[in-house]
């Protein structure tokens, strides 16, 4: 299936200034177009583009398949990257990451249900987009405010110790490569 094109609107000025565009295909075959500046926010995608030797001439003829990310998440990711492509580079991650204010535009973009947000985090982690990861984790962290441990376990889907043990047991019982 090819849905052409579920892409953010690329402003004419931006195209003129930065004409290099890349095509990305999600796991469910949705096709997205993304500018060079935006795609650089994803370390995984930019490494891939560099390794594949894609250039301004052949970029659109060689769509990049991303099998771990579905169309819905990819749409959010492309929107985010286009929005933040000219942001200043992030300072080195220090683990003291609570000191930023989540912009309203991003808060609205991330106003999705918990299940979708967790899926988006997994996709963001795979594509290695630090800023989006920080923003998603801030939204997830905000959910924890004034919640009891019982409520946290339900919201985040945190397994109990017994469930953790059961998961580990089932993982060790399953046949390995030689089994």
């Amino acid at each position: 299936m090819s849905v052409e094109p579920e892409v953010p609107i690329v402003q004419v000025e931006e195209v003129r200034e930065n004409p290099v565009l890349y095509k990305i295909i999600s796991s469910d075959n949705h096709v997205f177009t993304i500018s060079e500046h935006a795609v650089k926010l994803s370390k995984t995608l930019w490494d891939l583009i560099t390794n594949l030797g894609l250039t301004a001439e052949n970029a659109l003829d060689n769509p990049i398949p991303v099998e771990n990310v579905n169309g819905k998440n990819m749409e959010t990711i492309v929107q985010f990257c286009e929005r933040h492509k000219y942001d200043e580079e992030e300072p080195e991650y220090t683990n003291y990451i609570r000191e930023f204010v989540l912009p309203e535009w991003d808060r609205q973009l991330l106003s999705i249900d918990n299940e979708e947000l967790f899926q988006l985090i997994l996709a963001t982690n795979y594509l290695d987009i630090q800023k989006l990861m920080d923003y998603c984790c801030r939204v997830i962290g905000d959910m924890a405010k004034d919640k009891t441990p019982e409520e946290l376990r339900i919201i985040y889907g945190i397994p109990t110790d017994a469930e953790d043990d059961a998961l580990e047991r089932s993982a060790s019982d399953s046949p390995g490569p030689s089994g």
Partner: protein
Amino acid sequence: MPVETRQQKNLGVMPPTTPSTLAQWSKMTNDVRSIVVGHLDYGSRCNMKLCSNNDYSLVNMTKFKANNIVISGVSNRDQGGVHIEIDSFSIWFIKKDNNTTEIERGWNGEKIERYKEIRQEDHYDLSRRFLDKYHQKFGLNATSVHIQSVSFSPSPNWKIKCDNFELLEAPLDWLNASVSRKYKSLVIFDVTNPVWAVDERMLEATDKLSLLLENDMTDEQLETVKATDVCLHSKRITTDGLIKYLDYFIKNGKETDSITQQCYLVHQPPLNGPLSQMT
């Protein structure tokens, strides 16, 4: 007994996680979970530690910086003591008869009865030990630190680090325990030290500077003040010095700053004489 240990006793009665959500947290790598934990406030961290043994370890491994730390004296009609707030978590050390202390804990300023305990020890010693342990674990490191109405000085090894510092009715030693060189906001009011001088850190505060106790600030120092939200009380500032500062204020003041809120002049003739008060 710490709150966490007490609460952990309740773990046995937790309902099992629903299968539909079970996968989410488990699917995340430890790195991702650490970032989420890095966004939790102090209370949420404590609760997260109680979710499972894995999360207890995860939270302990993740650094923490509070948004807000408040250390304040309690002095009601019938009780005295120390109240410490770290984000939404609160702990009170209330002085009782016969050198005993009642310790209460709670969230969002509300005491929780089941965490109350009595210790046969001085309330200052207990509160200091609590802060010692906290300092050892995380450092007295927060976006904002407020010290209010406390009569004791900080321990010599404490190093306070913050962007916004407020010292109200407390020894100036607390400011000296701060290792921050540049504040966004610095408020000092009614310190117990009779003599104190304006120093570089006060002049370097970027947004707000309130020195509500009479001080020795001069025109030359006022000229180097960075903040545009100021409240000062110095007899050494002259009209000329003030006019220069007002010029700076007009050029650099934010839209939200109001000059009527920044400067209140008690005019003392002759015109070039010292201004007795500028607030």
